[in-house]
């Protein structure tokens, strides 16, 4: 008996060691499995970002590239214009306007996709489960074609000799073609079209398990249709709405192909501005700086909205 009692501490020590070893082994396996993803993020994500950060503080080379001289000119240039003769700075809002237009278009795109996407997501969630996959397939169908081609076909539809103008003229509604191509409206329509699935899918995901008897419960408890929508449907689908808005707003801000083709390069968005700096503009530091400023603004906006969301959650909790 006494021997047995003595063995107990030893056994528990062994157990401790074994558990420790196993935990260590598990950690190693986990790290090993994560490695490929970490490498990809490191090589193709963080490394280019660091290069952009470094370049944004250098001077532009004459034929593109950079001169290895420290300078904050790229950031100054974003807000001010340097006089060629006396080097004085004067405020220049041209780039701010481009940012403003980008944000404006992106926010309109977000609301446009939300207004169109929410009813679609709700509709699909309300179908019997066996029909939903077919609807989801239809939503993802455009992804089977390259964005460039889809945007080109939009161009063919809205241009002066395009489908809409021809149809309207045949019907006698208008006598001369309407200018639709190369307008903000065309860019907005293109963006809404391209990003609509990114709004529908997360909202659908949040409504997929929605219990439609909650609507009856709401009506039964004296809520009108509008109140049921505002008090029950919207709050329950909020995570999907927030995710959809982020998924649309952020890429729409940096959109390149759509404003390039449908805006004709006249209506610049940030994406086009950045691309231009690395191409014909030959100002790599400024392109890098513009990209980083955009990223900074988006990050701050995202953090603020997350905090606001968390507060809302707490208040309702």
């Amino acid at each position, binding site marked *: 008996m006494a021997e047995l009692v003595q063995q107990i501490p030893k056994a528990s020590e062994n157990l401790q060691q074994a558990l420790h070893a196993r935990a260590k082994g598990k950690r190693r396996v986990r790290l090993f499995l994560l490695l490929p993803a970490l490498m990809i993020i490191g090589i193709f994500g963080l490394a280019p970002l660091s290069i952009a950060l470094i370049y944004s503080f250098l001077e532009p080379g004459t034929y593109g590239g950079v001169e290895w001289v420290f300078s904050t000119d790229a950031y100054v240039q974003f807000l001010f214009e340097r006089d060629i003769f006396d080097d004085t700075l004067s405020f220049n809002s041209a780039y701010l306007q481009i940012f403003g237009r980008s944000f404006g278009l992106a926010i309109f795109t977000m609301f446009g996709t939300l207004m169109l996407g929410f009813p679609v997501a709700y509709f699909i969630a309300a179908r019997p489960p066996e029909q939903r996959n077919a609807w989801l397939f239809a939503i993802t169908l455009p992804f089977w074609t390259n964005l460039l081609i889809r945007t080109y076909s939009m161009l063919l539809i809205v241009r002066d000799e395009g489908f809409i103008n021809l149809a309207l003229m045949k019907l006698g509604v208008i006598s001369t073609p309407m200018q639709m191509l190369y307008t903000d409206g065309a860019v907005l329509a293109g963006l809404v079209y391209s990003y609509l699935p990114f709004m529908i899918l997360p909202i659908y995901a949040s409504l997929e398990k929605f*219990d439609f*008897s*909650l609507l*009856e*419960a*709401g*009506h*039964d*408890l*004296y*809520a*009108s249709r509008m*109140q049921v929508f505002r*008090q*029950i449907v919207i*709050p*329950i689908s909020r995570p999907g709405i927030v995710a959809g808005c982020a998924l649309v707003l952020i890429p729409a801000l940096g959109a390149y192909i759509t404003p390039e083709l449908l805006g004709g390069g006249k209506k610049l968005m940030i994406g086009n501005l950045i691309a231009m700096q690395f191409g014909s503009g030959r100002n790599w530091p400024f392109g890098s700086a513009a990209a980083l400023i955009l990223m900074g603004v988006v990050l701050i906006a995202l953090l603020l909205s997350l905090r606001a969301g968390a507060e809302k959650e707490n208040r*309702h*909790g």
Partner: protein
Amino acid sequence: MIDVRHVTKRFGEGATAVTALENVSLAVPEGSFFTLLGPSGCGKTTLLRLIAGFELPSEGEIRLDGESIGHLPPHKRPVNTVFQNYALFPHMSVARNIGFGLEMLKRPKAEIAATIEEMLDLVQLGAFAARRVDQLSGGQQQRVALARALAPRPKVLLLDEPLSALDLKLRKGMQSELKRLQNETGITFVFVTHDQSEALAMSDQIAVMSAGAVQQVGTPEDIYTAPQSRFVADFIGDTNIVTGELLGYEGPMARIRFADGPPLTVKTASATLVPGPVHIALRPETITVCDAASEAALLRGTVRDATYFGAGSQMLVCLDDGTEIQAQVDRPSPVGTVVGLSCDTSMLQVLAD
């Protein structure tokens, strides 16, 4: 008082239309615990949804305290529902769920808070006010659903099989709990169930439904001891239905006899049956076993099987015409013996069909 008048409900149009309720009329007395009882598909839930306003009647009228409400949307009816799956709002706390109805009615904040408090006490969930509903057990969710539906003080509370998702022990507890709530609040409860023992235990009145029609309305005792039709006799408890011969009527009673036995005077559900073979209901627990040759024996048969169930035994007796009779007895006769069955003739009931 709820007055359902000649209500018909059809789903679908034309040739594919399904009739869920066919010319149903019912009166639910104010302040009573009224149960709609029937097998699934009998139309009881449809009737409940018509009273709640989730469906509109194809024909007929529903009145509440004399006012026609059949055409009103659910949020304009002073009627609340406890749903089968509870349908609690997952994004709200227990307290906000309970206060939702009053909030929608735009009652003052102080009144809402006081009512929430009162309701939490009533369903004994005081400590759970701030909990999320998905952190509650099934029984607790059930209580929240009850409190939420009672909080606006509806004239009528509708309960759609609310106990079916609970396990047996909780269900028994909730049965007495519901009865207590009904007594304390004095609100009319309309309770839907397919469980006849639940209905018998809780109700002031039961409406037995089948195939979209009300078969019989009455107190649990009425329904149990004096079923009107074969369906009701069969659906409520274990019943033996034996064939006898109707000889004629004697005032409100019927004169019948079994096989070549003596004439008996028994209750009858119908005074318009033609003399000849009729169905007679006979409850297993009213049967006593006697000697086959005895004068008291109303029926004779052979014992086929006997099952001991603790409080007694269930005996299966096969009559000469092949009818199998269940009898509850203290001590079963051996299998294969021929026995006589007798019972208090006041417990026999001639059925309408």
